[in-house]
């Protein structure tokens, strides 16, 4: 666990700093376009000012040290404000959106998956399979674009963003919260479709396997009604592999959120990250990647906990201290 967190901080930082080019190069390049020319010593001064003159390792240690001891994630070069100020709200929104999407996927996909397996080759199953294929094959951003187009074309309104214009900069209030909810559904659907498709396919396949297990026959021989026994036994068993893949799903949602947010113009971490990367905004980009990865790790932890609740075998292993 600690190892994972440590590796993530390293990866997040060095991914940004190691490739050639830094923020100062950007400034110089931009200035050149306007005909300004920097002297060598001016560039060196700039580097010193941004702390970019030190070695990558030194910069990493300083950054880490500030985080650990002062809770300071550094300064955004591009925005000229502390990173923490920039990302706190956006990170909250990203988390909310990701969690809501995960819920959405569960609520939609699990019942459909169960239905498809139990009523194999029914009309509903074919419909679910079709939705599954669409979700599988349409990239997130394309779906977002199509929804944007449709709503613009047929409803004459833009569905982008997470807030109506009047609330964007307003302080938090109940109205603002309601406004958020009313905007949340489009990104949720866009983000959730691929996941939903995947979960339906997975649950269906797992459940189809489980339906032929001997314990189902036992339950049937006990005189349980078909519905009761399916829910109590095979569904419960089929949830297991699904839950252990939960972290995978969550990682994919967070990952997809980046790009969907850009298309839909959401005030989440995605657009900020993209811009920071293009500008070589070192600390902002590193912190964002780091936090998104942490979020994913939290998801993993959550799925492990769920698995422990669900599976007595793992519970026993945990009790015997085999996990950690």
């Amino acid at each position, binding site marked *: 666990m600690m190892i994972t967190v440590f590796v993530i901080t390293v990866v997040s930082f060095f991914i940004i700093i190691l*490739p050639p080019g830094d923020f100062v190069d950007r400034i110089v390049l931009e200035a050149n376009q306007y005909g300004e020319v920097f002297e060598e010593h001016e560039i060196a001064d700039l580097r010193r000012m941004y702390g970019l003159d030190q070695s990558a390792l030194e910069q990493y240690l300083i950054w880490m040290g500030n985080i650990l001891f002062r809770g300071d994630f550094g300064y955004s070069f591009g925005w000229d404000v502390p990173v923490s100020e920039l990302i706190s709200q956006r990170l909250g929104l990203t988390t909310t959106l990701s969690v809501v999407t995960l819920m959405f996927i569960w609520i939609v996909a699990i019942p459909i998956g169960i239905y498809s397996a139990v009523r194999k080759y029914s009309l509903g199953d074919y419909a679910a399979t079709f939705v599954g*294929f669409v979700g599988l094959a349409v990239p997130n951003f394309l779906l977002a674009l199509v929804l944007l187009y449709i709503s613009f074309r047929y409803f004459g309104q833009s569905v982008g963003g997470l807030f109506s214009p009047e609330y964007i900069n307003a302080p938090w209030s109940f109205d603002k919260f309601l406004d958020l909810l009313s905007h949340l559904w489009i990104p949720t659907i866009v983000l959730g479709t691929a996941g939903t498709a995947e979960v339906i396919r997975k649950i269906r396949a797992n459940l189809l396997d489980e339906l032929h297990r001997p314990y189902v026959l036992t339950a049937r021989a006990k005189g349980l009604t078909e519905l009761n026994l399916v829910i109590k036994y095979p569904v419960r068993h089929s949830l297991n592999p699904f839950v252990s893949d939960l972290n995978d799903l969550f990682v994919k949602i967070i990952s997809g959120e980046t790009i969907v947010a850009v298309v839909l113009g959401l005030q989440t971490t995605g657009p900020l990250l993209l811009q920071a990367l293009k500008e070589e905004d070192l600390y902002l980009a590193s912190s964002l990647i780091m936090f998104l990865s942490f979020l*994913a790790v939290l998801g993993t932890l959550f799925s492990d906990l769920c698995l422990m609740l669900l599976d007595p075998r793992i519970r026993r292993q945990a009790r015997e201290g085999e996990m950690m």
Partner: protein
Amino acid sequence: MSFAADNANYGTLIWRRFRRHRLGFLGFLFTIFIYLVAAFTEFLAPHSQSTYKARDVYAPPQSIRFFVKDRSRQETFRLHVLGYRSKVDYDSGKRTFVEDPRKIIQLGFWVRGDKYELWGLFDYDRHLFGPIKKSDRVYFFGADRLGRDVLSRTIHATRVSMTIGLVGVALSLILGIMIGGISGFFGGFIDLGIQRMIEILQSIPSIPLWIGLAAAIPPTAPPIQTYFLITIILSIIGWTGLARVVRGRFMALKNEDFIKAARLDGNRPLRIIFKYMLPNFLSHIIAVVTLAIPGMIIAETSLSFLGIGLRQPVVSWGVLLQEAQNLKSISTAPWLFLPGFAVVLAVLSLNFLGDGLRDAGDPYEN
């Protein structure tokens, strides 16, 4: 249990089962079709990817017509499209296109058109289908903001988009087999370390990681370099999944009775690996690889769409979709979405193919 008393070998059995997998077989045929398109783009596209006509900016798609009426109102069969008369509304600055029944653009097969060099080997100017008159232009998928033919560009983009998936997966596979093999071969702490590394890499959201790396590619880099850098970036995460599969299969097979038997028959380890293990998990690996290609295609498309993957003048489906990035352009020219359909079709057929291969992979399973 039924004993098929025939001499069918393993491959034949897989093929038979695969043939019965309808969606899988459909995907197989379509995948072949797409790669054929990718191989002969220049010949198949009516125009080259870069020729444009400023008057045709955002010209809507034209449909093929079959009959022409001559003066005596006699209908004769002649493939053609109708050319446009364009009007510019100077208040809004919008250009509207109206079909002009007099402008008949005749179409034909094997026509002369833009010159190209097929595979860098032959100079040629024939195209499968297009306007008979060399100077005419047709837009079955409409035109883009510079007046380039979207269909031709979509066809041209097939090559880059479809091969980037292949190259990316090949690279991932090489990395995956090497690292997975090292992991399986040495076992112990090396195995443990590599497995943990894979776990950590997989827990990092891939798109932020990709865009982080892709943003570092200098915009001035030559296209071919960008192309390979992108594949490398995609493989950085792609290999982890494949390494796991390879290692898992390897470990599982190692304990099979027939592998033990092979050892007792006096086979050397290398022969066991190549004669026994590899053929037995090859079909599975092929299926997994096939299923990994669409992920790569979508990833490339997404990166290019964000403007940090491939860039003009290289055309990939993602680059083309970048044109459709804002509401303004898609509301004036919804046909800019059409390259998206190519993505969907390619991804679907590869998925069907992969599913079919996986299901057919084990002929003993009923």
